């Protein structure tokens, strides 16, 4: 009896610090947030909170800006996932070739990944506003038009994440047994045939991982969004994450902001769950 008591103490003692922090920071706000979404909560300390039922949900679903934010987030994600993976894969192909500068190039391509999104966004804001128009001798810039501003954001994300995804593909390509490539070379296959029939299929699992990593990060993008476009022009680049903050801190509509936050959770969690499902399925197959 005494021994099991001690065991319990040790169990909770070791778990305690993490569990307490986690409860205060994640669990309680998560549960309270769900409750708040059904109330007229306004974040002013000391004011009473009334239950209002589904009113906030109804208002949010009727908000055209939310639909726009979702649509624009999907468009942005499409650009970003496509660009990051294409560039990441091509860079991986390049730096796995037998060449002297391979290691140096890896270092260079990965570097932007360590710089925070806010800082990167500001760097690129300068480039898009002051440098790119100069190079192409135009008055306009990519950030000022709804059609190109999202592409500009995807370009920044590619510069940031391309090297990261490259590293994942590099690991996969290096995992390909070299005998396989040698053998096909002896059979007279050229580089493209090599890529198509050997590298692609064997890199496919890494491709799934990268797809979801980039998709999740594209959905959750916020820092680059703030620093690069801040929602301009005509709110066409205000993506979901930023929309929550606009609703709460600009319109001071905290309850509806929280409803958007919950919707955001549902979408991001779904994407992640599909990823887990695929990864598990793959493990079973392998």
């Amino acid at each position, binding site marked *: 009896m005494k021994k099991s008591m001690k065991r319990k103490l040790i169990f909770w003692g*070791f*778990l305690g*610090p*993490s*569990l307490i*922090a*986690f409860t*205060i*920071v*994640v*669990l309680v*706000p*998560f549960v*309270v*947030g769900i409750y*708040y979404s059904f109330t007229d*909560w306004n*974040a002013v*300390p*000391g004011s009473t909170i009334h239950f209002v039922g589904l009113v906030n949900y109804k208002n949010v679903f009727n908000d055209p800006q939310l639909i726009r934010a979702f649509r624009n987030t999907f468009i942005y994600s499409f650009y970003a996932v496509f660009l990051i993976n294409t560039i990441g894969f091509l*860079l991986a192909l*390049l730096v796995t*070739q037998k*060449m002297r*500068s*391979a290691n140096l*190039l890896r*270092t*260079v*391509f990965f*570097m932007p990944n*360590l710089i925070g*999104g*806010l*800082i990167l966004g*500001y*760097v690129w*804001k*300068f*480039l898009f506003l*002051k*440098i790119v128009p*100069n190079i192409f001798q135009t008055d306009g810039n990519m950030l000022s038009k709804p059609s190109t501003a999202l592409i500009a954001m995807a370009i920044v994300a590619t*510069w940031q994440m391309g090297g*990261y995804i490259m*590293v994942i593909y590099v690991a996969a390509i290096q995992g390909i047994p070299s005998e396989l490539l040698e053998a096909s070379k002896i059979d007279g296959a050229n580089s493209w045939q090599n890529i198509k029939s050997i590298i692609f299929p064997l890199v496919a699992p890494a491709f799934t*991982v990268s797809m979801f990593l980039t998709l999740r990060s594209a959905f*959750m993008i*916020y*820092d680059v969004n703030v620093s690069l476009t801040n929602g301009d022009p005509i709110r066409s680049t205000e993506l979901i*994450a930023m929309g*929550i903050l606009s609703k*709460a801190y600009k319109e001071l509509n*905290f309850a509806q902001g*929280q409803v958007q*936050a*919950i919707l*955001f*959770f549902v979408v991001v*969690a779904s994407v992640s769950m599909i990823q887990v499902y695929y990864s598990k399925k793959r493990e079973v197959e392998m």
Partner: protein
Amino acid sequence: MKNYNKKRLILEGIGLILGILYLSPFYIIVSNSLKSKRNILVDTMGLPTTLQFENYTTAIEKMEFYKSFINSAWITFLSLIALVLFSSMAAWILVRTKSKISTLIFMMFVASMLIPFQAVMLPLVDFFGANKLNLLNNRFGIVLMYIGFGSSMSIFLFHGFIKSIPLDLENAAYMDGCNVFQIFYHIILPLIKPISVTVAILNGIWIWNDFLLPSLVLQEKALRTIPLAAQYFFGAYSKDWHLAMAGLTLAIIPVIIFYLLAQKHIIKGVTNGAMK
């Protein structure tokens, strides 16, 4: 053989061009960070007409660089120590305890990785605010938040690693009369060093660069971290591109130095984290 050399030369050429292209944004911000206000308004593309190193002294002063650097370092360092220690403790005890509650708690941590920060931020700020916990604008408050948000992934990574450590060593130590704390400190902590580095790197990159959380909970100027300080140059009345460029360069330098020093660990750590 000649054919092979030509192919390699082309590859090296492509690599060189791409490398320069990738690095060009750095060149542009550094060169513009040394221009005068007038110089930058008139000509952004060329090299500075005169080198204005005083842009850096002004930027350091305006963004209170030293103070924000120390804030960032303090918050990151303390969070990492706490995260590595607490998460490894929790993960170890969760692996070594075979009970329903243990499995349940582990599952809860794993499941919570699905919750994006934005889903809880509004109630979180409210909960930490006046009349409640009163921990906003407080360095320890934000460290507590980082421990809370970072623990899920950290426990998950530690859990996976500790699972593969054989029990023999621990059992032998028990026989020798060691208590749990001694075992954890002398046996487990050294063994999990590789994954601790990974956990520290992943969380370190996140915490150092994080903008949204500090922007919500550290409004006091004296507590600003580097991303918050960098934002200073881009506010509603921003007008000084030359100072902004100097500020961005300052914000980037520590990260680059860290990267060049610990490159191998970083790339490995980040890939490990992604593959899990």
